[in-house]
């Protein structure tokens, strides 16, 4: 197997870690403000899993980069254009329905991706995927059940969920569009061909949305620019002003 370009591998690992970092941060914003105590606990749990996964992905990214940076350096000291997460995860929480819909649409991709990554030719990648996939299996079940419950709940909850789906659907496509980094990963057997994941994804999402009595939006338009880093949404910068505040304000301090 061809030796993989380490810069590409670094980018791939940043994508995995930035997705979990940014989504974990978003979910943690709910802490203490959820609709019911059980949801406060469940959301904190999801955020904790995602932050733990971030430590593993960005830790490996830093090791591959070999420039003496740590996972924390990558999380706290890069600016917007160096982030490689998909646009979906940086979208604001909105109401609880929007948060849960975002979670489900990402989790379904995340599960398919991690499942494939457990068979990665890169042993470190396979090990992280094996650890994460169990957590994400649970996330997708929980988010899916909640989407179903709220979609098939009251008129108001149904309308809110449909609105959330319509809003977020254009951010789904970016997760499946391969670029040269993805091609290099697939060629080296490190990661799957992203287009291969779409079938399982569509089947799972269709089943959950049907049970939720929600209508999949027409059209295949997809926003892009997050995973390439070319053009994030304006939301990411504001997220970073909070997340990175202490490290930026007190450079070099140890916490």
């Amino acid at each position, binding site marked *: 197997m061809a030796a993989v370009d380490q810069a590409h591998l670094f980018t791939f690992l940043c994508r995995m870690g930035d997705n979990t970092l940014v989504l974990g941060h978003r979910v943690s914003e709910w802490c203490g403000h*959820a609709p019911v105590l059980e949801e406060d606990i469940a959301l904190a749990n999801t955020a904790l899993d995602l932050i733990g996964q971030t430590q593993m992905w960005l830790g490996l990214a830093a090791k591959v980069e070999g420039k003496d940076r740590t996972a924390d350096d990558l999380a706290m000291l890069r600016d917007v254009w160096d982030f490689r997460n998909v646009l979906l995860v940086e979208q604001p929480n909105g109401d609880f329905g929007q948060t849960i819909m975002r979670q489900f649409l990402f989790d379904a991709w995340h599960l398919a991706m991690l499942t494939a990554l457990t068979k990665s030719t890169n042993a470190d990648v396979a090990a992280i995927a094996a650890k994460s996939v169990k957590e994400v299996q649970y996330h997708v079940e929980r988010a899916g059940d909640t989407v179903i419950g709220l979609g098939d709940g009251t008129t108001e909850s149904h309308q809110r969920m449909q609105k959330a789906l319509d809003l977020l659907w254009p951010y789904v496509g970016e997760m499946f569009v391969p670029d040269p980094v993805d091609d290099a990963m697939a060629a080296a057997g490190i990661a799957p061909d992203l287009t291969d994941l779409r079938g399982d994804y569509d089947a799972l999402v269709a089943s959950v949305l049907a049970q939720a009595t929600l209508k999949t939006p027409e059209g295949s338009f997809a926003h892009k620019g997050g995973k390439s880093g070319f053009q994030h949404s304006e939301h990411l910068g504001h997220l970073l002003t909070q997340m990175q505040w202490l490290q930026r304000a007190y450079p070099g301090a140890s916490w």
Partner: protein
Amino acid sequence: MYAQMVKSEATQEDPEMLAAFQARIDAGEKIEPKDWMPAGYRKTLIRQIGQHAHSEIVGQLPEGNWITRAPTLERKAILLAKVQDEAGHGLYLYCAAETLGVTRDEMTEMLLDGRMKYSSIFNYPTLTWADMGAVGWLVDGAAIMNQVPLQRTSFGPYSRAMIRVCKEESFHQRQGYAVMMKMAQGTPAQKAMAQNALNRLWFPSLMMFGPSDADSTHSVQSMAWKIKMNTNDELRQKFVDQTVPQAEYLGLTVPDETLNWNAEKGGYDFAEPDWDEFFEVITGNGPCNTERLAARNKAWDDGKWVRDGLLAHAQKRKMRKVAAE
């Protein structure tokens, strides 16, 4: 404490029943929800456990305030896990209170409209990262002082909830102290931040135990019923004696010029907090009362459609299942 100024209810009941009940408590027996109990015992416990539960819930807010600004991934995970624990404590305590015949929703409504209280400490702001250390060290530390003896409280469900809670609280206190240590040994700015946090949170932490209740008839009744195990002053003294050496070890100064070791009593002499401020805080005039209650009300109001939606779905499923049978 998490339950401050809980007035015990006077009870007018058959003296023989009361005496038999007291004898069970004196013998160290646990009272279980189905057992006979004086109305005053029940009412006082609902107030006390409810207030304790509400404190755990509102207590998520001052620490939740820093989750999105935690300085490292590890600190963020630890803080998130801690705040999640507090939500879990709220849940155990609401369950314990529910065994006395009041629902969680009823108690929540009473918190939200001000009929029930929560600990005064959570009406103070968290202004710097050092406050995350100080809260764990001082606030969880003070909570442990009260909750460890409450593991032996007479009401079974409360006692069992306290046993679970205490295991986690001591972990919180150690984590808080570890944050303080890091700051106290850090840069001059970090050290100043740590001292600043101690300056602001020392007296509010002492207030957590409530004003002196040595002469309070309510306390006497609660202590006889073993729903209060020590006087407020005893616990406060214990807390000061434990905490002052920890502050010294950190190289921080407790903001009390009168603080002095009293060899004769084997404890520190220390200044009382400003009790006028305390009464202002518990009647609604603390620095963050308005924000805390507004945040809880907003979460509850905004979440109504979610709770209603999930409930409606559960009912639909049940109907479908019945129809299918």
